[in-house]
């Protein structure tokens, strides 16, 4: 099933929300994308106490796609990113990345919860940028970016620094590489955080409300950098944001969440201009 053949499959989450193949969006600017399935959520349930945040969610994301998750707060968008980053464990269901279990591993023919080592191996392919940046304040900008490539990927120091300089150039902060994060503005810190995530060359980049903690005048700089990355690389993006113009700009697919379910999804022009679902209409009229 692909998004454009069945653009409106509200409520029917059990049959899957394929954020589909090359045809999903005419606006796809990533011809290199091979369109294979990269992320799969299979009946994933997550509860916090008695509150069910995600309810048997099925979801697929295809390689190279840029997917934006929208919806009221508490609807489970951020939980999806945190599950993918293994910051949370699902209560039920499985998550796979490129066919490999992320949260589980095979022991014989039984599926058991993943060891720390296994999930670290798989999650190397996933990068995340946080709302609060979470840069390491005890390291200068350059080392924030080289730390993981050196100690996780085994790059030598020179190669890692070379890579870091290229990325700092991409985010427009070359002259700040020798500063500590606290010496930078919020917008600059967030751009460093983006460079830090990209330095691991992840297949998937998770963006968790990356502009929400920024002063309004700093938002544009960060979004410009992300637009640039979205349009010039074939990285797969999952993005939780309240910046609807940005979502419209970079997304191949927008998913509307409500109460732990995907109630509607489709290309941005459709979701933003002609949503099927009453709940989506309400939400958009409140935020736009």
């Amino acid at each position, binding site marked *: 099933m692909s998004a454009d053949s069945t653009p409106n499959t509200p409520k029917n989450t059990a049959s899957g929300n394929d954020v589909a193949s090359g045809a999903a969006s005419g606006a796809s600017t990533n011809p290199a994308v091979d369109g294979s399935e990269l992320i799969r959520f299979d009946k994933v349930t997550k509860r916090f106490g008695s509150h069910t945040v995600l309810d048997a969610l099925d979801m697929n994301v295809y390689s190279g796609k840029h997917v934006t998750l929208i919806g009221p707060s508490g609807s489970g968008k951020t939980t999806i990113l945190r599950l993918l980053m293994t910051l949370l464990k699902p209560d039920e269901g499985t998550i796979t990345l490129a066919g490999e279990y992320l949260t589980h591993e095979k022991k014989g023919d039984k599926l058991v919860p993943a060891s720390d080592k296994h999930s670290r191996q798989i999650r190397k392919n996933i990068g995340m940028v946080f709302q609060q940046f979470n840069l390491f304040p005890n390291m200068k900008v350059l080392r924030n970016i080289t730390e*993981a490539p050196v100690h*996780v990927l085994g790059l030598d120091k020179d190669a890692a620094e070379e890579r870091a300089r290229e990325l700092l150039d991409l985010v427009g902060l070359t002259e700040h590489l020798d500063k500590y994060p606290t010496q930078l503005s919020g917008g600059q810190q967030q751009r460093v955080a983006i460079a830090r995530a990209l330095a691991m060359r992840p297949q998937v980049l998770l963006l968790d409300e990356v502009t929400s903690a920024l002063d309004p005048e700093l938002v544009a700089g960060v979004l410009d950098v992300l637009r640039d990355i979205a349009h010039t690389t074939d990285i797969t993006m999952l993005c939780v944001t309240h910046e609807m113009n940005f979502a419209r700009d970079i997304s191949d697919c927008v998913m509307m969440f409500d109460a732990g379910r995907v109630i509607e999804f489709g290309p941005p022009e459709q979701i933003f201009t002609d949503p099927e679902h009453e709940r989506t209409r309400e939400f958009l009229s409140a935020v736009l």
Partner: protein
Amino acid sequence: MKFDWSAVGDFMPLFWRGVVVTLEVLALGSLMAFALGLVWALAQRSSLKVVRWPVTALTEFVRNTPLLVQLFFLFYVMPEWGVTLTAMVTGVLGLGLHYSTYTAEVYRAGIDGVPVGQWEAATALSLPRSRTWIAVILPQAIRRVVPALGNYVIAMLKDSPMLFAIGVLEMLGQARQFSSQTFQTVEAYTVVGIAFILIAYPASLLLRALERRLVR
């Protein structure tokens, strides 16, 4: 009562020997308290009960019994079990062990104070556990607790005369010996009292300056 300045002069050679011993005990004891305390703090975060439980029992026990009792135990009881240590070694071990249970709490608070986002960022970068501790968590935690650790160094300085009770001739021990031989008590003890102030007060000033620098 007469204050005899010449007695002060007579005491000086012994006094300086005592100062050296006090500072030695303080330096070695502090190093031990810093290192062991970190070991306790990390062990108490272990996911293994067999590691956590004995460490908690040991640190609670040591923290809640008097230093003097511990010193006597190490010095007079351990030999019964075939472990005989010099007074100096016993003193350093006793002081270091005792204060390690306090520094463990300090480290624990420092580690708890590192924002959860730092752990999450380390996870998101797939940093191994050991690297997360060494490069991310501990540098931030320790920076926060340097002033608190410093306060315990000053407290250790003030507890160091207890080592006199097992025969370590630090400042107080030397004063006691001098006064018992010359019967000039006022001079020797006065010198020692002033010496403690001269060491402790600048040290606490230094700490306050350090605190201003570190806690930004």
